[in-house]
C-alpha cells in the first residue's frame, strides 16, 4: 500500500512538477509583459497576417508530411531487410541537424543544383513558381524539419499494432491496401492523432529552417516565430512575448479543436 502510494506520488509528482514549472515560467513571462501588449498584438494587422500564414503553412506541411510519412513509416515498420540500419541512420539526419543547418542545406540545394545558373530555384522561378524567399519555401522548410519526426512517431505507432489482426483480415479476403486503410490505419488512429498534433505544433514553432530558406521578409514570409524573432531583434521584448502568447493561444485553440473533432469521430 505504502509502496503504491509512494510510486503514485512519484509519478504524479513528476507530472505535476513539470506542468507546474511550465505554468510558472509562462506566468512569470506574462507578468513581465503585462496584458496590454498582447491585446495590441492581437489587433495588429502584421500579427494577424503572421497568424494566418503560420496556420496555413503549418497545416499544409503537416498534411504533406503525413502524406509521405504514413506510407513510408508503414513500409519502414515492416522492413526487415539488410539496409534497415542504414535507412534508420539516414532518417536520423533531419533530427540531429539544427533547423538552421537544414535550412542551409536546402538553400544550397535549391541554389546550387543542378548548377549555379540556372539553379532549381531559377528554373522553377521561370515556371512562375519561385521557391527561395517565397511562401513555398516556408512549407518546404517546415516539411523538411517535421518529416523526420513524422517517420519516427508514425513508425512507432504502426509497430505497436497486433499483426495477428491484419493477418486474419487478409485471410478473410482483404488485400493489403484494404487492410492498411480499414484495419491498420483506424487502429493506429490514436497514435496518428498524437503524431499530427506533434507535427503541426512543431511546424507552427519552426523558425530556423524557415528563416534561412524563406527569409524573414515582413508581410511576405513572416510566420509567427519570425515575428517573435524580429521583435527580439528590434529589442522589443514585450512585443516578442506578446507574439509568443498569441502563438500559444492560436495553437492551443487549434489543437483543442482538432482533439475535440477527432474524439467525436472516433
Amino acid at each position, binding site marked *: 500500500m505504502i509502496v503504491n502510494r509512494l510510486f503514485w506520488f512519484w509519478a504524479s509528482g513528476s507530472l505535476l512538477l513539470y506542468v507546474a514549472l511550465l505554468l510558472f515560467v509562462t506566468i512569470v513571462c506574462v507578468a513581465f509583459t503585462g496584458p496590454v501588449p498582447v491585446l495590441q498584438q492581437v489587433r495588429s494587422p502584421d500579427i494577424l497576417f503572421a497568424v494566418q500564414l503560420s496556420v496555413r503553412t503549418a497545416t499544409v506541411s503537416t498534411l504533406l508530411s503525413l502524406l509521405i510519412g504514413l506510407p513510408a513509416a508503414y513500409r519502414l515498420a515492416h522492413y526487415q531487410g539488410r539496409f534497415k540500419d542504414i535507412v534508420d541512420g539516414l532518417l536520423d539526419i533531419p533530427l540531429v541537424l539544427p533547423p538552421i543547418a537544414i535550412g542551409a542545406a536546402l538553400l544550397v540545394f535549391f541554389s546550387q543544383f543542378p548548377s549555379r545558373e540556372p539553379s532549381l*530555384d*531559377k528554373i522553377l522561378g521561370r515556371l512562375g513558381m519561385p521557391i527561395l524567399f517565397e511562401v513555398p519555401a516556408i512549407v518546404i522548410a517546415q516539411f523538411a524539419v517535421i518529416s523526420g519526426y513524422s517517420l519516427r512517431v508514425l513508425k512507432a505507432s504502426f509497430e505497436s499494432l497486433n499483426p495477428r489482426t491484419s493477418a486474419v483480415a487478409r485471410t478473410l479476403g482483404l488485400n493489403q491496401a484494404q487492410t492498411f486503410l480499414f484495419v491498420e490505419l483506424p487502429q493506429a488512429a490514436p497514435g496518428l492523432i498524437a503524431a499530427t498534433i506533434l507535427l503541426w505544433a512543431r511546424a507552427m514553432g519552426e523558425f530556423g529552417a524557415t528563416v534561412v530558406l524563406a*527569409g524573414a521578409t515582413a508581410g511576405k514570409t513572416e510566420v509567427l516565430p519570425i515575428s517573435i524573432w524580429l521583435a527580439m*531583434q*528590434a529589442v522589443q521584448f514585450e512585443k516578442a512575448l506578446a507574439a509568443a502568447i498569441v502563438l500559444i493561444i492560436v495553437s492551443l485553440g487549434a489543437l483543442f479543436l482538432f482533439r475535440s473533432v477527432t474524439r467525436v469521430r472516433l
Partner: protein
Amino acid sequence: AQRRKELRVFAGAANMPPLTEAAKLYEKKYGVKVWLTFGGSGVVLSQMKLARKGDVYVPGSDDYMEKALKEKVVDPKSVRIICWLIPVINVPKGNPKKIQSLEDLTRPGLRVAIARPGSVCLGDVAVEILQKSGLYDAVRKNIVTEGKDCADLAALLKLGTVDAIIGWDVFSYWYPDTPLDAIPFPAHLLRFRHIPAGVSVFASDKKEAQRFVNFLASGLGKNCYAKCGYSINPPKVTAEKEKSGPKKVQD
C-alpha cells in the same frame, strides 16, 4: 497588366525600425514595393550570395559591406553611407552601479558583456578599445558572456542579467519607456563604424536599386535613422584614430 515594381532588400536585423520606416516612405513616394528581409548581416549576405537574389544590401555595419565587396555580391560603386555607429558603455537607467569610466568596468563582481569578437563588429570594436586602454585583461575577468548579435547584447542589459555592456550609442534609444544610460568613451580611445547600403550585383533593375540606396543616404532616409537615435554625422576624431575606421568611404 504591368506588374508593380518590386525591390528586395536584405538587411541586418539591427536596421529594422528605421529601415522599415524608410521603406514605407519610399513606397509611398515612388510606388515601388520594397520587401525587407532581415537577418544576421552575415546570414543574409550568405543567402543573397547563394540564391543569387536580392537588389539591395544593408548590413548592420561596414565590415559586412567589406565582406560583401570581397565576395563580389555588392557593386563597390553603389555603396553609400547612411549613418554612424559610435561605441559607448551602456548601463541601466539611473546608472545603479555608478559606472563612470572604462576603469569602473574592472570592479570585482561587476557583470559585463560585450558582443562576440570575430563575429560581431561591435565585439571587435570593444576589444580594440579595451586593448588600447590597457584594461583588456582586467575587464575580461568581468565579462560573463558574449552576445551573438547586437539585439542579444542589448537584451542582456535590459533584463538586468549584466550590469554594463559596451554597445552602440543607438542602444540607448531602443527602449523608449526606459532608455539606457550611455557613458561615452574619451576621444583618444574612440573607434567607430558606419552603416552602409549598396546595390547587389544580382539586382534585376540596378537603376531602381541605386535609387533606393541613394534615397537611404539622402536626407529623407537619414532622417528615419536619426529618429531612431543613430548619429547621421561622423564623430570628430583625430587623424591617427581614423586608421581603424572605415577604409573606403564614398559620400
